[in-house]
């Protein structure tokens, strides 16, 4: 009897042990599966997933371009000595400021203020043109005019030394100097180098028209810096790395920014030792202002007619931009309207 009871007890004990074992094994397996799933879900070998996701910015579809009136020229060229009248003449040739600016517009003007140089040395946009352009835009009814650039050197010094700061402020524009918080990641679909890149975004908030104003300069790497290269001043981050493929990045810039129109500042030309220059001997007075919707046409004009490189092939970035259908550098085939002022 006792043996029988012992045997039954043993059986019960074994059954309980088995249940316990299966229960515990199930729990362990469940915990292991849960841990594995958690590890899979949290796996982040580069550490990028854990970082806050930056806001991705997109510029308007079609950029800031405006429709071209049928009577407007493709390229407006004004020659003379009176900058405001020359600017007016060049812009009138491509349709007049009224064709670009509507009352209530918020307009961003992007000069080239890359270096801490006085305007006479030709490394930066002529402040007289910046001033005249602001007044022209304000007279057309713009609600607000902004001036912005992200210079190579200390922004305050560059804006001050170039004279652009005083020109902008005196003419009634709002000046934007870059701060780290002003940059956002811009998405440029189809770009080779800057599909996603830090962009000087703050001045663009609420803007619906954009105008570039660039000097004509020799450039050590890309051979010439004009209206297309000017947009480089909107990039942030370690942009100097793009010099490894300078023509590729300029073609990307043409894709990135489709301005309302551009002004090529050919009042003086830095024909050598660019883009910084230094000597007045590197600069010649050319007394010309060009306005165009087509950056490549304006720059091609600058290359041939202002830099005087008629016998040299255009830099490679022209071909790369043309391949993307971003403009027409064959300005002689376009409607060019020239005016002589004074």
């Amino acid at each position: 009897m006792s043996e029988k009871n012992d045997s039954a007890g043993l059986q019960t004990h074994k059954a309980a042990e088995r249940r316990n074992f299966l229960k515990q094994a199930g729990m362990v397996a469940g915990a292991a599966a849960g841990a594995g799933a958690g590890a899979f879900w949290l796996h982040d070998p580069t550490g990028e997933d854990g970082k806050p996701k930056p806001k991705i910015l997109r510029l308007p579809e079609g950029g800031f371009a405006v429709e071209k009136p049928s009577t407007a020229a493709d390229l407006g060229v004004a020659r003379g000595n009176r900058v405001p009248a020359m600017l007016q003449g060049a812009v009138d040739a491509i349709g007049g400021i009224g064709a670009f600016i509507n009352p209530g517009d918020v307009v961003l003007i992007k000069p080239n203020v890359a270096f801490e140089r006085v305007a006479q040395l030709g490394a930066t946009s002529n402040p007289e043109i910046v001033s005249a352009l602001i007044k022209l835009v304000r007279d057309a009814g713009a609600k607000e005019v902004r001036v912005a650039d992200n210079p190579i050197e200390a922004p305050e010094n560059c804006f001050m030394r170039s004279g652009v700061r005083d020109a902008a402020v005196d003419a009634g524009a709002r000046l934007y100097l870059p701060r780290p918080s002003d940059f956002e990641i811009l998405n440029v679909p189809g770009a080779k180098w800057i599909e996603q890149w830090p962009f000087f975004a703050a001045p663009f908030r609420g803007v619906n028209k954009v105008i570039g104003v660039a000097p004509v300069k020799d450039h050590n790497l890309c051979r010439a810096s004009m209206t297309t290269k000017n947009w480089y001043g909107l990039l942030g981050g370690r942009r100097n790395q793009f010099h490894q493929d300078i023509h590729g990045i300029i073609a990307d810039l043409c894709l990135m920014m489709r301005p309302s129109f551009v002004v090529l500042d050919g009042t003086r030309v830095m024909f050598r030792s660019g883009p910084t220059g230094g000597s007045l001997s590197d600069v010649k007075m050319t007394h010309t202002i060009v306005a165009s919707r087509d950056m490549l046409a304006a720059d091609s004009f600058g290359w041939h007619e202002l830099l005087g490189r008629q016998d040299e092939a255009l830099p490679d970035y022209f071909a790369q931009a043309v391949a993307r259908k971003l403009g027409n550098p064959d300005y002689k085939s376009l409607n060019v309207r020239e005016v002589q002022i004074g």
Partner: protein
Amino acid sequence: MPRKDDRVFVKNGFRHYRKTYDLTEVRIGAVLLLGLAVVIAWVMYKGQHPDPSLAALDVVAAGVTEVKVERAPLPLELTIEGWKEGPVRIFEFTNLYEKINGREGYYKSFGFERLHFVTLEKADDPTTIVDIELFNQSKAVNALGAYNGERDKEATPEVGEQGLTHYSRNALYLTRGQYYLRAVGSDESPAVLKQLAHVRARFEAELDGEALPWSYALFLGKLELSPDAIAYFTENAFGFADFAADVNVGRLEDETELFVKVAEDEVAATKLAEQFNQGFLGYGQAKAGGFIEDRYIQTISKAASQGPWAYGVKGAPDIAAATAGLERLAKALSGFPVPQVESGQDKAPEDALQNTKSESGADPGEPPYDSLEAGEQ
């Protein structure tokens, strides 16, 4: 067993279950709250009244930290009366782009090591300035190469014992040893030009220089070429392979290039000359007398050797010009002191510069190479 009225969570956060409370705790709490209020008020006040220096646009002060930097090799007392000096800034190989993005590659191609930058400002007119840019190019030949590549072709350098100098309207350019100085004035007013002259005097007096490379003694002193016709290739001269390193070139008025490289001994020089000739044959065909005609532009080249010198002509318009150039160079090399062979250039032998041409002596002509080509060094 849990009781029904046990509080698992705080159901009434404001209710305390202590019969008494400590007055000290209340006082500490009040002090903390007061402190917090003071901090908030301070933040709000500072937001309304920011430090004016944060928005300062002063040309000299803005963008410059108070960090003291090593001033040397900039001389002291760079300003004349009525001018003041701004802070010194230094740019290294890794951050030169912050100062001259787009052109930094030019200086780097000539062995750039460091840039000292300082602005001199007229005290009563902050728009009248002179920017001092002192590039340390690591070797005298590099400084001379960078200088020549940027020189205004209308400007003829003054040749000193330790470097070249010229003015270009509003700017002064000077080499001294491994240093290349660019002093850029805001205009060409008498005040700026006077300040530039003072800068030149200070650098010539204080900056450690060294004798010009021996190639200047050869091309200037013996062959009487213009200083702007001299170039130096650290490597790959004429697009040739590794053997074409440390090659010195002087250009004649008819575009014929005379080149020289010093070898370890006569045997090495002979071999080098053969290598140059093989290089020329790569895009040319042999002519009588060992000359080689470029098959594309029909110019004449030939290399030869003499003692430890491997030398030759390149780009001569015809065989007669090539022969004349070769003979002229061979004659100049005859008896010319042989410098030690080492990486880079040696200094000019003593007295070798006695016959250097003065600034009025030669038509400056075109610079020997444009900046990009020279930059390929």
